[in-house]
């Protein structure tokens, strides 16, 4: 087992390097200059010379310099041109330069990463003023995680008993009906669900007006005592959590049902029945316990997902979470932030995949890894 774990850990390294290289090159090689765009976007008329300098400074700081080795050798430096050269050779030289710059940049990024420097976000600052991507994410993760934890807990609490019940009454109307209903729920697009919830259950809407429709806290929440604070949080989280929960039920319920069914068909259950044990005892005492095993694995695997937010839910409910952060970062070609998020999510998922597998092997002695 130990060698297995070590081998898996070692194998993670090339995967992670691969992921970072692919993502880095994609973002770096994409056309368009995020720096100058950002400056221009936010300031309108600007002196071109000053902007160039400003952009260059930012680029140095962020390790996003574009080198022009090949182009300079073949066509001369930029300020010596009378007019911009054209043709396939020029295009090829520029392309080669861009790839080379990206490669240099990646090495730089990797080097900085090894000493713990994740770079700087182009677009964002934490409320403390830092541009460190890790801190940026750290600011948002608690928000997303809170919602996800509540949602996942609810999903587990609802779906697993449902799944087990469906297996227990397999083939009867409950099984068919629950399967149908859960599948139907899963098929409702999140945008629609969120809109309907806001429109008909939200304050200021057209219906019952029971729940707030934005943010996770009322204004002035810092002053609330703990009990009231929690109540306020749950009240705000109600609608977004419903959006996150309704679709996730189907998968887990199916899994629970399949797991229990498999156990109910197993030999040891047949033996128990043959022994004359009452059905309830057979099911609840023996089969259920074993059926919970895959659920635990599912739980472990769900943990990395806790830091990933749903863009749709976050946008519609004005929640500052990690989902929105990634999408905005992508739109702004915010390299440092994209890399940090990808890396974090990759590491977490791989590690928890390993933990999940190990846990499964530990719990089920029939499973063996060499």
């Amino acid at each position, binding site marked *: 087992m130990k060698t297995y774990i070590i081998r898996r850990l070692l*194998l993670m390294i*090339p*995967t992670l390097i*691969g*992921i970072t290289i*692919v*993502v880095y090159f*994609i*973002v770096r090689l*994409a*056309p*368009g200059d995020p720096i100058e765009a950002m400056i221009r976007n936010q300031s309108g008329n600007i002196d071109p010379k000053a902007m160039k300098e400003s952009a260059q400074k930012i680029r140095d700081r962020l390790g996003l310099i574009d080198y022009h080795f090949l182009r300079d050798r073949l066509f001369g430096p930029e300020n010596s041109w009378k007019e911009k050269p054209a043709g396939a050779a020029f295009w090829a030289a520029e392309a080669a330069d861009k790839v080379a710059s990206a490669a240099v940049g990646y090495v730089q990024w990797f080097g900085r990463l090894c000493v713990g420097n994740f770079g700087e976000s182009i677009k964002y600052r934490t409320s403390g003023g830092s541009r460190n991507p890790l801190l940026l994410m750290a600011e948002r993760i608690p928000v997303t995680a809170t919602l996800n934890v509540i949602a996942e807990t609810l999903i587990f609490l609802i779906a697993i008993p449902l799944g087990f019940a469906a297996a227990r009454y397999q083939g009867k109307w409950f099984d068919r009906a629950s*399967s149908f209903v859960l*599948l*139907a729920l*899963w*098929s*409702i*697009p*999140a*945008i*629609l669900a969120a*809109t309907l919830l806001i*429109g008909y259950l939200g304050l200021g809407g*057209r219906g019952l007006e029971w729940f707030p429709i934005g943010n996770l806290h009322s204004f002035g929440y810092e002053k609330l005592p703990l009990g009231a604070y929690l109540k306020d949080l749950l009240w705000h989280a109600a609608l977004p959590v419903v959006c996150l929960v309704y679709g996730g039920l189907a998968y887990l319920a199916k899994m629970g049902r399949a797991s229990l069914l498999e156990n109910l*068909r197993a030999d040891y259950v047949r033996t128990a029945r043959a022994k004359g044990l009452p059905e309830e005892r057979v099911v609840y005492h023996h089969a259920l316990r074993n059926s919970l095993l895959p659920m635990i694995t599912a739980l472990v695997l769900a943990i990395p997902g806790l830091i990933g937010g749903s*863009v*749709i839910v976050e*946008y519609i409910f004005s929640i500052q979470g990690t989902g929105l952060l*990634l*999408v905005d*970062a*992508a*739109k702004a*070609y915010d390299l440092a932030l*994209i890399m940090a*998020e*990808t890396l974090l*999510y*990759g590491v977490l*998922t*791989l590690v928890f995949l390993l933990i999940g597998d190990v846990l499964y092997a530990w719990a089920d002695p029939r499973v063996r890894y060499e």
Partner: protein
Amino acid sequence: MSSLLPTTEAAPRTRSRSYGAIVWRQLRKRPTAMVSLGVIVLLAFLAVIAPFLAGEVPIRWVEKGQVSWPIFRYLDNAEYAGMLAFLLAVLLPVTVRLVRARAERAAVSPLVRAALIHGAVWLAATVVLFAARTPERRYGFFLERAPEAQSAWFPLITTPRHPGYESLAHRDEAPSWRHPLGTDRLGQDIVLRILYGARTAMTIGFVAVGIGASIGIALGSVSGYFGRWVDLVLMRVAEVFMFIPQIVLIIIILAVIPSWFPPLWAVVFVIGVTGWTGYYRYMRAELLRIRSEDYMTAARALGIPMWRLLLRHAVPNGMAPILVGATFGIAGAVFLEASLAFLGLVQTPSWGELLNDGRQHLEYWWGWASAGGAIFLTVFVYNLLGEAIRDAIDPRLKI
């Protein structure tokens, strides 16, 4: 009591059923599966014949004694290709039967051979079409000139194909006889938008998942066949692809594509190229599992080459979970498209766009309810089908 004497009568022939046929038979017994399949076929059909159902280009036009069929001039090459694809897909069972009648035993199942034949026909026709024909694109003035025509067969719902100044005056109208599902914020008929949105949904669904599944099957087979180092490397590659943030890739690809390249296909491409890992794993798992079976060892000992065995046994078995994954994948792709429209990234006519439009103004319910309902129905039906297939391939249910 049967005679113990040898007879000249040959033993009754038992038809060996392929795995696929068994699954199909199981599926036929389930009403939900059949209804789902029916709805899917219907949706595809409606998507394909959309211009005949709603639009401004007449099907038949008689002016000054001259008969013409304008709609056929105006149909895009891609639309013809789509129609052909649908037709060929529907006729597949016929070809399968013909192929099977001709050659019972072959390495490759009749289904695959029939599919390859249809695929080749479609490809050839499409290439010819695109090379030889340029569709008509100019403004037709048909609606305005209708009084001048002696006879004009307009589509079922006669409405401008694109919104313009005139349609603006009819924005946000409630459902009526003229517009059974009302109009949207630019005055466009909603039935038209739903029909054309169906195309986007079908395209994203089938093509994206098709690409993904193809890549996954191919790589999975390679992994399973060669094993060892090849497998090790490919697994790492799969893990890398699993972690590429799809959204990032989509946003960047959309920025890169040249102006003549339709953004929808770029998105389809990205979804396909990043979505193959699941199928890869199914196929690989199946191949690896089968390799170690006894009957495989026996067959190898008889000198039958590995590739033939894998093709005949492993691949068809591996297809089953892939099929399940594919149906859920299509459902997921339709959802993804809605999210992309919500984020404002893609501007193709789609249900996601229509849903997003109506979001801010719930009282114009015809728009978002139709779009939401369409998405829901499509995804639900695919999910039901996927569930049914999954149940059908469960060996314990086989009789």
